């Protein structure tokens, strides 16, 4: 049996794409997260009498805290399997990747384990975040001045 025949046969057994379902679920989940964030912002600003900047930071910290705790309790990945990009793209996805990597490498100790592996998955985001910030900052400076 040649490779072509194998490949043609394999195509028949590839499961149907669930892209549409994933997109809709991710859209709704991301939207719900945004609403929760907005409510939290309102609560922090008006009930705790914080200024907008501090309240915004506190909203982000709240999301990170809840994500990290639920990752540690082992429930985050079960929800993430269902909601997909809706939980992956917001700050919760970033927090989860840090906590999950740290938990996994705990057995190798604080330096070689947690310290050097915590950014194993999130490292790309940081690296390219800094690189793109440099270039966009430079472009902005050249076009519009300081």
């Amino acid at each position: 049996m040649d490779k072509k025949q194998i490949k043609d046969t394999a195509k028949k057994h590839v499961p149907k794409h669930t892209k549409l379902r994933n997109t809709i679920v991710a859209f709704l989940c991301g939207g719900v997260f945004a609403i929760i964030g907005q409510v939290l912002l309102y609560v922090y600003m008006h009930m705790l009498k914080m200024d907008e900047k501090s309240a915004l930071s506190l909203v982000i910290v709240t999301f990170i805290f809840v994500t990290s705790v639920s990752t540690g309790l082992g429930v985050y990945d079960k929800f993430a399997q269902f909601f997909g990009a809706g939980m992956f793209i917001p700050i919760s996805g970033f927090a989860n990747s840090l906590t999950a990597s740290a938990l996994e490498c705990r057995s190798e100790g604080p330096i070689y384990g947690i310290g050097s592996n915590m950014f194993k998955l999130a490292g790309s985001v940081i690296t390219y975040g800094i690189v793109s910030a440099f270039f966009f900052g430079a472009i902005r400076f050249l076009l519009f001045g300081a």
Partner: protein
Amino acid sequence: MKTIIFENVYVQSRATAVGKMEKDGPLGSLFDVTFEDSYCNEKTFEKAERALVYHACDQAIRKGNKKISDIDVIVGGDLINQLTSSHYFARDMNLPFLGMYAACATSSLVIGEAAMLVEHNMANYALAFTSSHVATAERQFRYPNEYGVQKKPTTTLTVTGSGALVLGRKKTKIKVRAFTPGKIIDWDHKDANDMGLAMAPAAYDTLKTHFQQTNTTFKDYDLIVTGDLSKLGYSFLMDLCVQDGYEIDHRLHDCGLMIYDFEKQDAFCGGSGCACSMCVSLAKLLNELEQGVYQRIMVIATGALLSPVAIQQKESIPCIAHAIVYERSEA
């Protein structure tokens, strides 16, 4: 190399140790030792996998009324780099040890190798084992366990467990009849999240080679099981067989589809790992062979020999499958 036929190799005793999810599956009551969580009373997952090996081997030796000193050689393997579980287990055994790796096909490979040593009087008793653990395998081959990335529907779930058996020349009801070593098949498949499809052509090649060399077909076996092709690979393999004109006649099955309850358990496409084919064949299939449900069965363990580094370098996945034939003998 041709299919190796054995005349004097019998399974003396066998045992399995598994984790919680396997215990809760449809075969749960058949396993010898079961654990309530992934840690198996140890501090790390790596040690947990080792604990599974210890329990499986310990039970296998005890059930055969043997002592460790009766064993002449140990043949074993697992999925972790440097065969960590196997080597650390063998460190404490003080016996000659042969470590082998063929990914999930390791189970048939170690049994085949042990059978060769026994058949040719190089060992009176040989202990063969394999192990895998979902947490250690995920960590090495995929992502951290708690990482919330959406897994593809083609994913398989690594079986947490270990199986061990003692082979010898003393007659028992289960005879190891033949071993067909497979060759590596690579059809340019690159999706590391879809092992079932990747491995099916390798299983098909070994199956066809075995049929040709021994002049047999599906009708000569009561059951032929593949190791861990999962739902997709299983249907792919059937398709390949049918295209070549084989009549399967309900004789083909897959260990990865037997170990979990798809209705109740979140098992994606099925079980995988070198404990999958080992635990299912030792706990279920050999029991049924012993009881006379079957007279002759074949286990084709399938392995995807991927390396995470090679995958990131855009290489394809080489796959292999080794077959072992068991026969019932009137002891």
